[in-house]
């Protein structure tokens, strides 16, 4: 996943945090390519959920301050993302396999780009 200028919301902190989310997913892709994803997947999900916690909280504060319409809808999308991470962790813990990791990578990378382009652009400065 490569960061592109079109993903920028012109907010230094948000852009920096979005880039960090890209970085976490790139690390996961690296683990998949090196065939070591099974060893690192739970760690990656933990890292992702911890960082998403910080980022979503900061982002929602900004949305609130800017009085952006559709805040609740945006927050619901964040909550739904967290539930997905939760379900992935539960599922992988129960039965770890590479297919789950690859599907998760595909979902997460698409979700992140789609969410930035469709939702986060609403508060672009």
């Amino acid at each position, binding site marked *: 996943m490569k960061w592109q200028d079109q993903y920028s919301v012109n907010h230094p902190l948000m852009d920096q945090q979005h880039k960090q989310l890209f970085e976490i997913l790139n690390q996961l892709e690296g683990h998949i390519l090196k065939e070591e994803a099974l060893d690192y997947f739970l760690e990656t*999900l*933990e890292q992702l*959920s*911890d960082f998403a*916690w910080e980022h*979503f*909280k900061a982002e*929602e504060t900004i949305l609130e301050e800017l009085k952006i319409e559709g805040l609740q809808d945006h*927050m619901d999308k*964040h*909550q739904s993302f*967290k*539930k997905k*991470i*939760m379900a992935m*962790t*539960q599922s992988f*813990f*129960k039965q770890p396999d590479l297919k789950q990791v690859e599907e998760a990578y595909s979902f997460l990378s698409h979700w992140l780009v789609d969410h930035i382009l469709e939702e986060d652009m609403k508060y672009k400065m």
Partner: protein
Amino acid sequence: MKKIKIEDYSPEWAHGFVALRDAFLEHLNGSYKVTHVGSTAIIGMASRGIVDIDIVVAHKGDLIDLKSQLTFLGYIATYESPDQEVVYFRRSIKEVPLLLEHHSKWLPHHLTLCLEDNIVHKSHLVFKDYMMDHAEEIAAYNELKVALAHKYPKDLESYQEEKHAYIHEVLRKQGLKEADFDLLIKYQYN
């Protein structure tokens, strides 16, 4: 493996337990009791800051039902005894129990779901009651934990093993028999 860090007693642990207990009482249906056990439940005791919670039920049917409800809230059953009397849980992500509120952040905690007359829960209560009545033992146990954390800075298994020797000694003094310890081993008590 993270370094084992022993923290001085903090009242925040009791507050953290109350917040979790209230969340369970609000979101879990059925007949059960939520009890704060382990080191964070004992005033003055140092610990790793992980709140241990027992959720106890009278019947296996309630246990099976609650297991499913806890999974829905985001917990992972890491061990379930074959006789379905004891289930240990960890959180999938740190926001678990994931409720409707946004950005909930709970204290780190471990859950044990078990039958109320199971030896695992009984031993938790025996140890807690004994330590709460013996302040001098708390100081000695704190010293032991700090020493073990220095001895095994990143080896949780060895740390736990030597700590358990102390706990078992207390339990033995309080009347637990060899058969009880055999059961604790069976339930992978830790």
